[in-house]
């Protein structure tokens, strides 16, 4: 909220008069633009709006690089030895896990996490009308909240100054992407995107499959080195013999990632089972602060199985930002100043309607 500057809605900028529509139809000769081209958030789009990523891709290239390099080394150096000494299924399982991990990662990174489009001017003006404002327009109004009842529990909805609307429950504004995201979990730099309602299941399958993959590679490398040292040589000799000591590098990468990935998977499994988001857990939104008051999570189904099913296997919500839709001619001129439009009596009438 530090970056947001409060701007009061100018009622004259609303409802374009019919006279000006004729001016705008002249502009139809211009190429029709798609909505992603005028998207106000800090996102980047590829493939003509099909792919969406955060502005800073974070360490996504590093994540991909680490996974590809480790698996590459595994297939190149460990698999030939293990296929010979153990079973041919080792590279098959490794391959399936690798494909699953990469697909889940790409899905998480390139999917719209559940971005809420910003309120239209009319909508924002309507909301402002409903809020009591005491003071002049130059004074920044106090933070606005609205209390509602969800499943017989009081929940506070906050007003988002950037998106000019009351945030739905469980929605949070990501300052890195400058968007309100539904069921906001966290902004993951490893994945280079926010994790929210629409891509949480992809993120969860990514970390679970990555846990399996790192554990599997770790186990195979240990097996590889053990088998080599079993044929009469010492452990050091075995490592030196294995091609260019790459298995050691794999061991180190896997060892460090296992702790963090397994920990993260465990934590998210707990969140899924109790229908919480990382955001809510960190803020302690539903932990009983006062002993007397019962403030449980209003969204839980009070059953681990139900919570898991809802979060992971629920219906896939649609993207609300319509990236590839075409802008209508009126929309493609977003900031039409009042002086350009001929609105003599119309504006006065509009004002009368608004005030009354």
């Amino acid at each position: 909220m530090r970056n947001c500057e409060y701007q009061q809605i100018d009622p004259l900028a609303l409802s374009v008069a019919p006279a000006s529509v004729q001016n705008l139809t002249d502009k139809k000769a211009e190429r029709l633009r798609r909505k992603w081209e005028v998207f106000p958030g800090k996102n980047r789009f590829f493939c003509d709006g099909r792919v969406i990523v955060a502005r800073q891709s974070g360490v996504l290239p590093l994540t991909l690089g680490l996974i590809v390099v480790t698996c590459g080394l595994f297939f190149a150096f460990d698999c030939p030895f293990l296929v010979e000494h153990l079973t041919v299924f080792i590279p098959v399982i490794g391959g399936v896990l690798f494909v699953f991990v990469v697909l889940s990662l790409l899905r998480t990174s390139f999917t719209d996490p559940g971005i809420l489009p910003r309120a239209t001017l009319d909508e924002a003006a309507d909301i402002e009308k409903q809020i009591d404002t005491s003071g002049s327009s130059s004074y920044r109004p106090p933070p606005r909240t609205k209390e509602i009842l969800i499943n017989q529990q009081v929940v506070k909805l906050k007003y988002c100054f950037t998106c000019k609307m009351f945030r739905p429950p469980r929605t949070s504004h990501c300052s890195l992407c400058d968007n309100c995201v539904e069921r906001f979990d966290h902004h993951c730099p490893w994945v280079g995107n926010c994790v929210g309602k629409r891509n949480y299941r992809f993120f969860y399958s990514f970390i679970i499959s990555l846990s399996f993959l790192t554990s599997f590679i770790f186990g195979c490398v240990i097996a590889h080195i053990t088998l080599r040292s079993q044929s009469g040589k010492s452990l050091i000799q075995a490592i030196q013999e294995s091609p260019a000591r790459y298995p050691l590098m794999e061991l180190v990468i896997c060892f460090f990632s296992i702790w963090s990935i397994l920990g993260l998977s465990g934590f998210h499994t707990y969140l899924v089972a109790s229908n919480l988001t990382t955001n809510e857990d960190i803020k302690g939104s539903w932990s009983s602060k006062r002993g007397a008051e019962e403030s449980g999570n209003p969204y839980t189904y009070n059953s681990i199985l139900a919570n898991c099913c809802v979060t992971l296997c629920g219906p896939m919500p649609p993207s609300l930002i319509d990236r590839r839709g075409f802008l209508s001619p009126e929309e493609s001129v977003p900031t039409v100043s009042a002086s350009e439009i001929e609105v003599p009596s119309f504006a006065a009438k509009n004002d009368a309607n608004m005030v009354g």
Partner: protein
Amino acid sequence: MRPFKLWQQAAIAAKVFIQRDYTNGTVCQFQTKFPSELETRIDKQQFEETVRMLNNLYAEAEKLGSHSYIEGCLACLTAYTVFLCMETHYEKVLKKIAKYVQEQNDKVYAPRGLLLTDPIERGLRVIEVTIFEERSLTR
């Protein structure tokens, strides 16, 4: 009585926004309270019926049943690539909703100088009802 004015095209008099109803959680439901601005234009029963029908359709889209679980599990097994070629259940219902809104506009709202905007165009946040200026009516 407000004076009637002749316009080349219908001018927008006001817009009413029906907000979301969160009493049952984050499922998409809209408030059925009848806004006072529409009192002169449309029957309360008719309007509430429209909103109730929309609420039922959205509930159907977000319903947790065997259908959605099968879809979810199948998607998980295929590493979510199935969503690239298959239309989800939600999207199918959204098409039904778009048709319903169009039909309601044609039959009920346009003759009364009103226009319903499909909530998906407003990010499923509001149902926007545009009230047009009354043109000279011949009764």
